[in-house]
């Protein structure tokens, strides 16, 4: 740990979450308000990072997406309590978290943020590729199934109806009218009917 100014005045990191009810243009006034609150406690902001829009792990007050903003500052303990309360009472800020931290060079923090973003992108890409793969697999399977169904229906269509029809037609043509008449007479003439 390097002995810096923050050894005397505590250094904090604030992360606050604004719901996606607001557009990205409307975030600036919220940030200004927070900065003003920090300035009111004679705080000095050392680092500022917009983490962008993210999908929340779980819904908060019905919101599934939100904007994350990071601010680091040196602030006296008494003023910190007031800032915490102000943030809690703010309607625009869904949630916030202030943690105590060892002060770091802003450039180092920037590098860390970049690494974080890269990992995030890689993870997102992995998820996207996994989704694409599963989608493709599902597509291929459905296509296979459809092909199978089409094939079987074709087979059935080819095998069953045409030969049966022809046989039936042959039978009917073979049995002439006279034969039918004789058969009928036999049935009618027999005693089976009257029994």
């Amino acid at each position, binding site marked *: 740990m390097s002995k810096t100014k923050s050894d005397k005045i505590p250094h904090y990191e604030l*992360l606050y*979450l604004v719901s996606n009810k607001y557009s990205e243009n409307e975030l600036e006034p919220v940030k200004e308000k927070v900065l003003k609150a920090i300035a009111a406690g004679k705080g000095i902001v050392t680092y500022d990072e917009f*983490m962008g829009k*993210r999908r*929340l*792990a*779980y819904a*908060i007050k019905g919101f599934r997406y*939100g904007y*994350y903003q*990071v601010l680091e500052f040196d602030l006296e303990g008494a003023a910190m309590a007031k800032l915490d309360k102000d943030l809690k009472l703010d309607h625009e800020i869904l*949630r916030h*978290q202030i*943690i105590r*931290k*060892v002060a*770091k060079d802003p450039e180092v923090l920037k590098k*860390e943020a970049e*690494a*974080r973003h890269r*990992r*995030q992108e*890689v*993870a997102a890409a992995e998820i996207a590729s996994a989704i694409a793969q599963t989608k493709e697999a599902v597509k291929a399977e459905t296509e296979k199934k459809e092909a199978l169904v089409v094939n079987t229906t074709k087979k059935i269509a080819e095998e069953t109806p045409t030969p049966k029809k022809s046989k039936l037609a042959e039978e009917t043509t073979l049995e002439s009218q006279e034969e039918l008449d004789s058969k009928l007479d036999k049935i009618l003439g027999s005693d089976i009917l009257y029994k």
Partner: protein
Amino acid sequence: MQIKKSCYYCDNKIDYLDYKDVEELQKFTNSYGLILPKRRTGVCSKHQRKLAMGVKRARVMALALFTNK
């Protein structure tokens, strides 16, 4: 699951555990979002404590899940 014998944070000389880096923390949680025990993660005691704190902080800010059913 394979047991890792060396501490990830000691090996990579990460002096500060950032709770905002969820993708990193997810290595030490299972698919339900629960923190894995030290014997499973292989992380040393000092870093395991920080890790647990980081995951809990991430959960509060909806960066990570409390539980995933």
